[in-house]
């Protein structure tokens, strides 16, 4: 491009930046003005609710109880939460589902990404076929798989000759939820990984081939390490959406049978909109945010790619 590498002359030293003209200041001001709508809107729908939740979580905010509304209750809501077996079970179920689904879906997505990365006839068809499940609403994927798993209308029992009432059992319900979730999410993760694959220069593979590396060695020693940044992004996305799973549970099982598929998000929703308990719900929400931050932090730390940047 047009700009030249400036010569290596130091000026001003530790006296900081050179003075800035009014023109640059005007540009800077315009820049902040351009950012303002996005920042204000996002603060309004994230930071504000977070603070509100925090405030609520230390108060009694139950709309169904006239008495004691708005009073300071200290950490009562948190104590109640940590002692609640319903919350603990929901936490455990959520973590287990997130862990298992992340592991399986990421591996499958990696396979799909490698498939999409290869040049072959019909790749366009594969791309479209894979993109559509990603693009449809969760309501569609959940409803669709609810149909598929239904004993009378579904395909699954019919083709495999089973007589399972999938959504009546605990493990079968989880299987159905997992399938619906995986079917919709794998394409998206695969796309993230694909974009990571595409930035790996092909010469590296050619060099490895000349060096006599087998496919597995190439994959292990080149593809995986170079894919690390994309993998980190994919894992964070996947882990968070796993931890926050709500739509599929609501639509397919409604948390049932019993409470056996109740996740944290679903419990949170119940607390807010069925029990109208915004104090207790606030505490659950705050923990949900903490959980997400922890998960993102752990993945980010595990996948830190110092050497690649």
């Amino acid at each position: 491009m047009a700009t030249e590498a400036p010569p290596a002359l130091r000026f001003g030293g530790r006296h900081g930046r050179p003075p800035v003209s009014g023109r640059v200041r005007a540009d800077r001001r315009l820049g902040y003005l351009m950012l303002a709508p996005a920042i204000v809107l996002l603060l309004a729908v994230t930071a504000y609710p977070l603070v509100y939740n925090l405030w609520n979580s230390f108060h009694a905010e139950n709309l169904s109880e006239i008495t004691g509304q708005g009073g300071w209750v200290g950490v009562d809501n948190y104590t109640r939460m940590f002692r609640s077996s319903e919350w603990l079970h929901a936490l455990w179920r959520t973590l287990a589902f997130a862990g298992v689904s992340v592991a399986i879906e990421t591996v499958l997505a990696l396979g799909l990404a490698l498939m999409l990365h290869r040049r072959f006839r019909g790749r366009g068809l594969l791309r479209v076929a894979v993109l559509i499940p990603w693009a449809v609403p969760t309501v569609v994927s959940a409803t669709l798989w609810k149909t598929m798993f239904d004993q009378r209308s579904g395909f699954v029992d019919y083709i495999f000759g089973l007589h399972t009432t999938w959504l009546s059992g605990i493990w079968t319900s989880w299987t159905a939820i997992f399938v619906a979730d995986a079917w919709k999410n794998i394409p998206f993760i695969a796309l993230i990984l694909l974009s990571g694959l595409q930035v790996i220069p092909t010469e590296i593979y050619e060099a490895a081939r000349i060096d006599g590396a087998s496919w597995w060695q190439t994959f292990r020693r080149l593809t995986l390490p170079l894919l690390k940044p994309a993998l980190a992004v994919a894992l964070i996305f996947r882990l968070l959406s796993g931890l926050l799973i709500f739509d599929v549970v609501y639509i397919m099982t409604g948390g049932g049978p019993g409470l056996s598929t109740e996740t944290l998000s679903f419990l949170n929703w119940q607390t807010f909109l069925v029990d109208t308990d915004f104090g207790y719900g606030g505490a659950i929400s705050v923990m949900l945010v903490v959980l997400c931050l922890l998960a993102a932090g752990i993945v980010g730390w595990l996948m830190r790619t110092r050497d690649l940047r």
Partner: protein
Amino acid sequence: MSTESAATGPLAVSRPHRPGTRSRRVQRIVREVCFYLAVLIVILIALFPFYWILRTSLLSDQAVGQGVGGPNGIIPAHLTGSAYSEDFNQQGFLTPLINSAIVAGLTTLITIVVATLAGYALARMPIRGAGAILAFILVAGFFPVLAMVGPLFLVLRNLGFLDSIWPLIIVYLVYTLPIATYLLRNFFMQIPADLEEAALVDGATRLVALRRVVVPVAIPGVFTAGIIAFILAWNDFAFAVSFLETPSHFTAPLAIVNLGQSQFQVFYNRIDAAVVIITIPVALLVLFAQRRIVAGLTAGSFR
């Protein structure tokens, strides 16, 4: 996967013995066949469920009652559009569809304007802390939706905005703004700075240069951001199920869940007819966008 065949292929040429060459060729063909089989399976898994709901949506109430099998196999003997007319005429599914279109459309519009401004500022303006601001915008996209529902419910209740589709337009920005801003920022950064500098020298102000030069050149990016925003807004369920009460105020995804439930039977044909309808615009967008984005507008104007 099957890249291995490509890796061993050229080496095989140097082998003089015919039998070795042949067995390698057979090996390679087997690998190719396996690969295409895998592709076929993936495509089937991705698309067959859609066939199944299309099939189910074309069954009569009676056929649904009979269950799968016999005349109602993989390819049913009798097809009817009765579930669709039931959805539209009796269940009033058109209203939620219109509601969804309004909300997703307006969200997309606001997203494009706001994200274009923010993305451009992040890409080009001499602001301080651009990295931190971008980080905040991205993190906001990961914020747990269910943790927002409670407080926003209270706020909307106090403002008298519950059970209305209008606040959804603002709330949905949490889905759309982060990704759209990030996408557009990256797009703007790829546009040569020369172009807007030329516009500035030609007498345009920053905003005029943005509107008349940068955005038109970045149109594929704006388009992509718009499509993704529309899909994300169209797909919401959590906020709709939390804030909407009256069926005539429902968005389409919420309406689907409440459709086809009767005391005695689940009418999967009616549910699936609605699923088919709500899937069509999204599927079309995907097909349409595939073609659009590829057409890079800047190709050829530099060098």
